[in-house]
């Protein structure tokens, strides 16, 4: 009997070309489990509740080539650096960590390295925790990533270590029509702190697909700020998943800034599993042309006395489509939770679309929670008012857009990054 190959089969067959035979057993086992999980998992369709507004045909109807080995191609990364920012730079090129393009300043108690190397060295933490919170069996893109990630960045902070400089991961695709699976894992030990930026960019990279998974483990009283900048030009596809686990008194902040991308899906899952935690999840998305930008977030409050703040702001131009689905669970034990969630959108054209669904599920009775969603247009009256003072229409729009998204950027603590984002917004909307 001849079985017709499904899209999943074709993609798997393709990814099977990757050779992981030299990896230690724990990694091979992990990949094998992921492969098994894939037998049960199917690509979501519009009938899948969590994917109702996002069709992934563009991603899975293609045949990608696979880069199976690290290349030595030279590349100037200067275009991807953030001006005035002194950072440790880690470069992932087409899915591979490029030591030669990276520059990491040694700091006692702080490790920033290739994940592949850490696996090869059978690093204890990696051995015990890789795949620990981003579970292959839970989701098809996590499974695909676990089965076939080629490399990624491993950041490890010892007790009481505060990263002197931010870590800037430049995750770049330079070839057309390839698929890259990258994996980041961050361990913040007790009382440690680190700031991370990850830029997803491409040079060429037409019709390429990036599937990234990041796992964040926050020990008691640690602080992690993760800034994700998505700016892939041209026809590009990206699914990225962050899985976060917070222990007592930890503080996790994620800022998701989507400036461009044909099809972008962000899955953010935060498990707040101890008291005294603070969680900030903010985002801005600027859709243009036929961009489709989807943010799905889940905050799961399991224990009492925690705060979470979520502000996502979208500006959708041309024929772009935005999706926001934010879910906050407050479990029975999680008394005295403060959970605040907000999604605001501006549609710049009649053809732009937003699907916004803020959700709150509360099982505890002594909590403060709020959520809300708004969609509107720029206020013409306000634009005229500004024009009547001598400000060009374009500047007036820019002023109003900057004002609109300001509070979604307030938890970025890296000043040069803030300026960089401002300059990108200026480029887009300003004179």
């Amino acid at each position, binding site marked *: 009997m001849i079985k017709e190959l499904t899209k999943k089969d074709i993609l798997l067959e393709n990814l099977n070309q990757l050779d992981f035979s030299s990896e230690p057993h724990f990694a091979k086992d992990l990949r094998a489990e992921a492969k098994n999980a894939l037998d049960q998992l199917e690509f979501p369709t519009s009938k899948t509740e969590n994917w109702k507004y996002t069709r992934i045909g563009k991603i899975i109807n293609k045949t990608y080539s696979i880069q199976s080995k690290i290349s030595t191609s030279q590349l100037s990364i200067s275009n991807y650096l953030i001006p005035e920012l002194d950072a440790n730079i880690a470069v992932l090129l087409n899915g591979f960590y490029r030591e030669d393009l990276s520059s990491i300043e040694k700091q006692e108690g702080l490790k920033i390295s290739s994940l592949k190397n850490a696996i090869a060295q059978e690093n204890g933490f990696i051995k015990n925790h890789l795949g620990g919170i981003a579970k292959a069996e839970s989701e098809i893109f996590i499974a695909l990533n676990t089965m076939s990630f080629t490399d990624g960045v491993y950041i490890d902070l010892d007790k009481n270590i505060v990263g002197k400089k931010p870590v800037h991961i430049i995750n770049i695709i330079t070839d057309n029509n390839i698929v890259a699976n990258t994996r980041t894992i961050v361990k913040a030990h007790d009382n440690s702190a680190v700031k991370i930026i990850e830029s997803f960019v491409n040079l060429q990279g037409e019709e390429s697909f990036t599937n990234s998974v990041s796992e964040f483990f926050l020990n008691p009283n640690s602080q992690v700020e993760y800034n994700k900048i998505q700016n892939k030009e041209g026809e590009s596809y990206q699914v990225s998943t962050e899985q976060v686990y917070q222990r007592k008194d930890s503080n996790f902040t994620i800022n998701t800034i989507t400036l461009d991308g044909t099809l972008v899906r962000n899955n953010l899952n935060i498990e707040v599993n101890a008291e005294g935690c603070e969680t900030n999840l903010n985002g801005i998305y600027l859709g243009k042309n036929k961009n489709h930008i989807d943010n799905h977030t889940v905050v799961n409050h399991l224990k009492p006395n925690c705060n979470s703040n979520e502000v996502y702001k979208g500006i959708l131009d041309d024929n772009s489509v935005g999706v926001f689905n934010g879910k906050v669970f407050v479990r029975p034990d999680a008394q005295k939770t403060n959970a605040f969630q907000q999604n605001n959108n501006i549609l710049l054209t009649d053809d732009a679309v937003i699907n916004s669904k803020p959700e709150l599920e509360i099982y505890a009775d002594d909590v403060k929670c709020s959520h809300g969603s708004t969609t509107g247009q720029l206020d013409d*009256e*306000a634009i005229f*008012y500004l024009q009547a*003072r*001598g400000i060009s229409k374009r500047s007036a729009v820019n002023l109003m857009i900057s004002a609109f998204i300001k509070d979604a950027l307030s938890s970025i603590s890296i000043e040069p990054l803030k300026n960089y984002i401002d300059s990108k917004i200026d480029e887009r909307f300003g004179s």
Partner: protein
Amino acid sequence: MLSIKNLHAKIDDKEILKGINLEIKAGEVHAIMGPNGSGKSTLSAVLAGREEYEVTEGTVNFLEKDLLDMNPEDRAREGVFLAFQYPIEIPGVSNINFLKTAINETRAYHGKETITAKDFLALVKEKSALVELDAKLASRSVNEGFSGGEKKRNEIFQMAMLEPKLSILDETDSGLDIDALRIVAKGVNTLKSSENATIVITHYQRLLDYIVPDFVHVLYNGRIVKTGGKELALELEEKGYDWIKEEINN
């Protein structure tokens, strides 16, 4: 300075201005009065360049240039200032930032360099004192959470900052208590010079006790039907508009 000839304008096919003629010279203050619906606010909107109004006939020359041919920002940069009847609240946009942008875009339009931070701050300090606007208000979001009086004072503050050649005050007195009215009027009078001109659009004679006009025009049914000196305003206050309507209709 401003020469309006046979100006007709409509909105949604409804003709509102039906042939306005008005000449304004530098150094003059003109009051435009008239009953509700006579076209007062339409006139100010057309001069400032609101797109909803369509000019169907006539010309407006401002300092020898065709005003109607310019977009709203260029009119402002050329020196036309409209103090809004209902100033708009713009959350998140700081009063100071937006004024700095306005001043710098106007300077760039005239080929001048941007204002230095120091000069700008000095200007803010000087001009906010003029209308007794709290420095804190100056740095807040545009009109957000301002009281009615504060909004109107903020309009005059902006006018002081931008130093226009022609100021149009659209019912600036409406809703003002007597103290706020005095402050607003003091601001306008201080800014008055032989180089600039003011159009005061109002319903009530009260404001004209403080800002004394050289000419008073009565607008009725889209036309200026009567022009006189400041005593005309007093007459209107005393007798209302009915006698004018009768005069016209007969």
